């Protein structure tokens, strides 16, 4: 775990007091910093993007009063939610949900790949941890739903469980496809297998990887309950399901988790299949040779986030334009369409990889 504080080094190298600070303190500060800089703003940015993008598709204007072009709208929403009077105190089930929820989100913070130098945990199982966190998130949400004494909560909880199981299997198989091509599941290995040119991205390598990319993104929607696969959180029939009884701070935590999950899945998809943070035209190697790690970190992060933004745009586009599917249709789709396609992609990708090794 000596890579923990490495990303911090270029930023604190100038300050003499930082030399004497023990390693664990630096690590802890780094984690808290990433949490504050990643999870909360990601929720805010995703919320703003969703509202503005859906307004663009629907011939509306969207938020434009809070700040220029409405960029402070998430701040206004957050303040409004936080100042609401709690309808009742936290009971022990909700406390457990909060614990599980935070653990799941936090565990991904350590693993989220935001650049070649911004990796905290880069082990052989790095790529799998976000996937397991999504399952744990689903578990927590299901627990929250089943603990509410009302029909919307029960249905929401059961649907979350069903969707999570249905979406997990093809997601995992598609993940394996990406790792097969890279030869491992370390972030650095996967990034190295795709250099800067789009033609060498994983998704463009061969048709099976292309199928795997689509299956990965769509099964992520099913797994996390993102529209148009959000039958577990649908408003018309079950009033939002699990969140039907939440308000104020609990709702903030819940929504932040959903937005962050969406962002996380998009970032993982970009890193696995769309070239990750490798800058075009070989800029990465140039900056590395020029020994300017701060610039490298910033550029890689921006490149990664812009590709993520495009993916989020496409998914939001499809979500707003298409009707929501019924929950049994979603799970049908996951088991009967996504899973066979993912298996076909896996077999094909393995054959191609094996052929190349011959």
């Amino acid at each position: 775990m000596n890579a923990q504080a490495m990303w911090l080094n270029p930023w604190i190298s100038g300050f003499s007091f930082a030399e004497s600070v023990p390693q664990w303190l630096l690590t802890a500060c780094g984690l808290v910093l990433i949490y504050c800089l990643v999870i909360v703003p990601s929720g805010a940015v995703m919320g703003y993007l969703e509202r503005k993008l859906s307004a663009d598709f629907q011939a509306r204007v969207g938020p434009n009063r809070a700040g220029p072009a409405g960029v402070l709208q998430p701040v206004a929403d957050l303040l409004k939610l936080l100042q609401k009077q709690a309808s009742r105190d936290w009971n022990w089930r909700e406390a457990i949900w909060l614990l599980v929820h935070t653990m799941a989100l936090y565990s991904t913070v350590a693993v989220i790949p935001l650049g070649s130098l911004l990796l905290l945990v880069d082990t052989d199982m790095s790529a799998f941890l976000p996937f397991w966190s999504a399952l744990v998130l689903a578990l927590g949400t299901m627990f929250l739903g089943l603990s509410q004494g009302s029909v919307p909560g029960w249905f929401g909880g059961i649907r979350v469980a069903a969707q999570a199981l249905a979406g997990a299997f093809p997601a995992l198989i598609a993940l394996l496809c990406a790792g097969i091509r890279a030869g491992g599941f370390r972030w650095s290995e996967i990034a190295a297998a795709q250099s800067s040119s789009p033609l060498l991205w994983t998704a463009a390598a061969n048709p099976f990887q292309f199928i795997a990319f689509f299956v990965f993104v769509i099964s992520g929607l099913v797994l996390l309950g993102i529209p148009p696969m959000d039958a577990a959180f649908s408003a018309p029939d079950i009033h939002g399901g699990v969140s039907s009884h939440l308000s104020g701070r609990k709702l903030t935590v819940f929504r932040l988790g959903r937005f962050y999950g969406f962002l996380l899945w998009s970032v993982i998809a970009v890193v696995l299949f769309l070239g990750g943070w490798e800058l075009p035209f070989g800029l990465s190697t140039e900056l590395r040779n020029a020994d300017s790690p701060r610039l490298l970190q910033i550029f890689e992060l921006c490149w990664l986030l812009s590709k993520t933004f495009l993916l989020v745009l496409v998914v939001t586009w499809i979500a707003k334009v298409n009707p929501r599917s019924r929950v049994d249709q979603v799970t049908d789709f996951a088991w009967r369409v996504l899973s066979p396609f993912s298996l076909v992609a896996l077999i094909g990708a393995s054959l191609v990889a094996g052929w190349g090794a011959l």
Partner: protein
Amino acid sequence: MGGVVTGGPAMMRGSVFSTILGYLRDVLWGIRSVWGSCLTAIPYLFGSGELSKEVTEQYPDPISSKIADDLPPRSRGFLVNDIERCTGCKECERQCPVQCICVEAEPATDDTKIWVSVFDIDFSKCVFCGICAEVCQPASLKHTKNFEGAVYELPELVASFGRGWVTPEQRLKWAKLRQQIEDDRVIL
């Protein structure tokens, strides 16, 4: 999104090959219809032509909100009564479907002059149907196009157009004027 041929795996119509073909056709249909729906949204994302521009009316920003002058001439907004022309015939009070108009009138010096002491329209009850303006003979009661009449207190919603209750001094003056007219007539 997507799905398989209706009828579960127990219903194998024909050969395995045709089932797989049907399955792939279904998947293709799903992809095609999703793509077709997405295509219709493209002009809204990129273009700004007449058919795909934003239609939000950003009230009260003058950038794109309607003011009373923009409305068609017949728009039924808040009512106003020109008390100079009003004859106090109470037809509007009689015809109003919700009885929101209250009129009190009495003759002043002579029968040609009517003093409308009370003419109250309670806009918390008014449904803006326009019947009162339609039946007004002297055409003193009219709909304006004004639609911004929100107030902070409910009693403020009552609009008073009347001249006020007749004071005892006025009554004396009228009696004197009436006497004078009588005297003039007798003299003539």
